[in-house]
């Protein structure tokens, strides 16, 4: 007995300081950890007002934020679903309303109701009753056209979705792949909202009419669309945002007073973007603080000119340049979230068969 007792005492002498060492370093007031914000490709990683806002956040809280881009929003979410519980970062920004159900069903996010969530517009907040995600902004996905191209070629711009299958618009449209891209998926939803079961025929006709498909919005807008400043593209029609025309004016160099592009009003689909704490993050406290910041007035006021979207928070003043060139569509197309949840994957598969195979 005695040797065992002695061994036990010896062991406890060795272990106690170790354990104590652990707990004391845990309880000690430690510096906040730097965290990673995972976002889609077109989220700026440096040098913009949005990044300046994130730097301010770092200064006031001590939490440094690194932005990692993870492809277009569709790719980003799939990756998040495959890594659920062991995420690539701490907070994810840019999950949109068409992907909401997949993100929630696969348990990608740790529910959190941020400080300041009462200031978020009610109809947006009600989309996530379980608080898995927090609405940050919204906008419209619409067909954009290059005004100059249509003027030079003496062709009327299309007036609605059905027009796009007409011969005069052959080989003019570029869209994003709905399996990889968030605006691509929104546009597919727009066509389903417009044509119902006839959407498959519509896309077959679009294909016959020479639609081009690329994987992401960046590539479609800046590399294939002819209307974007500095673009080498030659297609005058693109799936982009209702707020893309003001972006063209604001970024114009040399400055200009009117937008070189415009939106086809009747083709718009309302899209809400969300952020959330990724389940499995080792820095939950810091991650939550960042989500608080994303819906704070400070960050929300940068969204219109930073990402060209409307802030989800009510009472945020919109800059004049933004409101002046943004067309608010008279009516937007929409689909019931439950219908989207039940059919999204089936639609993506059917779309791939019709358009790509």
């Amino acid at each position, binding site marked *: 007995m005695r040797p065992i007792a002695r061994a036990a005492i010896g062991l406890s002498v060795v272990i106690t300081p170790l354990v104590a060492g652990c707990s004391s370093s845990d309880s000690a007031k430690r510096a906040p950890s730097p965290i990673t914000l995972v976002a889609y490709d077109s989220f700026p990683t440096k040098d913009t007002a949005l990044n300046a806002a994130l730097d301010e956040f770092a200064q006031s809280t001590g939490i440094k934020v690194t932005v990692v881009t993870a492809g277009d929003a569709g*790719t980003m979410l799939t990756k998040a679903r495959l890594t659920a519980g062991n995420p690539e970062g701490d907070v994810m920004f840019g999950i949109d309303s068409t992907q909401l159900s997949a993100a929630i069903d696969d348990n990608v996010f740790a529910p959190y109701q941020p400080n300041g969530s009462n200031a978020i517009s009610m109809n947006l907040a009600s989309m996530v009753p379980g608080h898995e995600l927090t609405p940050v902004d919204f906008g419209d996905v619409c067909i954009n056209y290059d005004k100059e191209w249509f003027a030079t070629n003496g062709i009327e711009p299309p007036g609605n979705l059905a027009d796009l299958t007409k011969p005069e618009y052959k080989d003019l449209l570029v869209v994003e792949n709905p399996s990889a891209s968030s605006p691509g998926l929104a546009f597919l939803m727009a066509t389903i909202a417009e044509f119902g079961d006839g959407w498959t025929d519509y896309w077959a006709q679009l294909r016959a009419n020479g639609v081009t498909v690329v994987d992401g919005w960046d590539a479609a807008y800046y590399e294939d669309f002819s209307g974007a400043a500095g673009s080498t593209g030659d297609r005058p029609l693109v799936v982009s945002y209702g707020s893309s025309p003001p972006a063209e004016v604001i970024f114009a160099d040399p400055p200009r007073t009117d937008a070189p592009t415009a939106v086809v009003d009747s083709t718009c689909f309302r899209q809400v973007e969300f952020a959330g704490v990724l389940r499995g993050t080792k820095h939950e406290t810091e991650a939550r603080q960042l989500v608080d910041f994303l819906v704070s007035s400070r960050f929300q006021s940068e969204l219109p000119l930073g990402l060209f979207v409307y802030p989800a928070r009510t009472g945020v003043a919109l800059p004049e340049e933004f409101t002046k060139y943004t067309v608010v569509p008279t009516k937007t197309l929409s689909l019931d979230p439950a219908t989207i949840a039940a059919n999204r994957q089936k639609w993506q598969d059917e779309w791939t068969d019709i358009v790509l195979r």
Partner: protein
Amino acid sequence: MDRHRAALNRLPRSFVVVLATAPALFIVGFYAWPVVNLIWSTTRRTTAGSPFRHTTTIVWFTLWQAVVSTVLTLVAGLAPAYVLARYSFTGRRALLAMATVPFVLPTVAVGAAFLALLPDSWHGTARAMILAHVFFNVAVVVRLVGSMIAVIPHDLVGAARTLGANAAQATRLVLLPLLAPALWSAAAVIFLFSFTSFGVATLLGGPTHPTLEVEIARRATQLGDVRGAATLSIAQLVMLAVVIVWATRRQRRSALELTGATGSRRPRGRREQAFVVTVAVATVLAIGAPMAALVARSFDTGRGWSLAGWTKLGTAEVRPGVGLGVDPLASIGVSLRFAVVAALIACAIGFLAASAIAASPRLGRLLDTGLMLPLGTSAVTVGLGLLITFDVSPFDWRARWWFIPLGHALVAVPFVVRSLLTVLRTIPSDLHAAAATLGAAPIRAWWHVDARALRRPLLAGAGFSAAISLGEFGATTILTRSGRETLPIAINRLLGRSGGLPRAQAFAVATILLALTTVVVMVSGVSERLGSDRA
């Protein structure tokens, strides 16, 4: 001789078991268990199964492009194989290296090279894919069939001609039956590589021509349909197993013993010289053209010639603050780090395994077969199995820095084992006996004799593993994490953009990857061992 050696200085059985433990755990833990788990997951996961309407079309396409690739490669490879096996001429070694190196080049870099070479109308077509498959696999014909041609006695065909056969008859009745076993095994290898083609199929076939492998990856990484992907993976695994078993049988049935090597000679007469020169020039052009096009296009940003593709690597922006979503310079570091780790893992496991296999024939055969299994499995399947198996604590290793290199090592280990075994089996047993006479215990003798002899083949194995890791695309596509992209992933993402600058950058990065791989292969002496080791 073996018995003599066994009696004199045999390794203790327990030591062999110790040697075999790590490789056995490695293959069971990181290959067998994930594959079992994959099969199990197809019944367990609850993702809404979507209709596989076009699965038959995809299987059919995968199959026919693989058959066409195989036949064309055999046809294209015969002439260089013949010339390299039969004739000695200045530059023969260089030509041999040039014809065999493509086999270890990264699929994504070669895919990019063909995108650079072929006109836009060929992009996204089956013929572009098939052409690249031929480019890769001519090496297999040169090595496998070439080594057979080298041992067919010259006078056999001559005898047939003397007996009244014309050239065609002599070829059909004498040459082909003799070459049959080599042709079949070459065909099997080429078919397997073309059937599971991923990098080439992704880049050159495009979304309109998916192979099974591409569809599996698309389901998993774009749709998040793991169950659908796993189902297709299992189906592909079964098809591959059928082909491998059939090919092995076929090869055994037509196996022939040939004795007496005949060696090569200088081409005689005008016609032979013209033949050799034509074949050599054609081979050099066919292999050099895609490389040259790749380098040239990295200077073409769509607005004339420019250095922007190189100078703006990692800094190009699409609008203020928004980059291209991938950092090519950082990915060089990531790739190199992964290559070193993969090589270390593969060499450690391969060294232990080869030693155990050489020491114990019975235990060895089992281990050898087990370690070969990942080769008969598609890379995407290996990645998918790892991803869905190691996702639960305390085995949640998806974010660990060694996880992706470990996947690379799974594919590399069999090559390291082959490379080591060839040497181990040629160590004269006298050396062990001599060591014993000088008083060395078996384990000490093993360390001084065997382990030492393995230095050069280990270096080659490390080089081969590094080359595989640098170019690996299938498993990496599944396991990659944002902000830690490897070179092939970076190239693929840049090629997904249609602008002139991203494309020039993609070609520049592919050039870097090609250069890195070539250097690794040359320095480690892999190119000299490519033939029998890889077969």
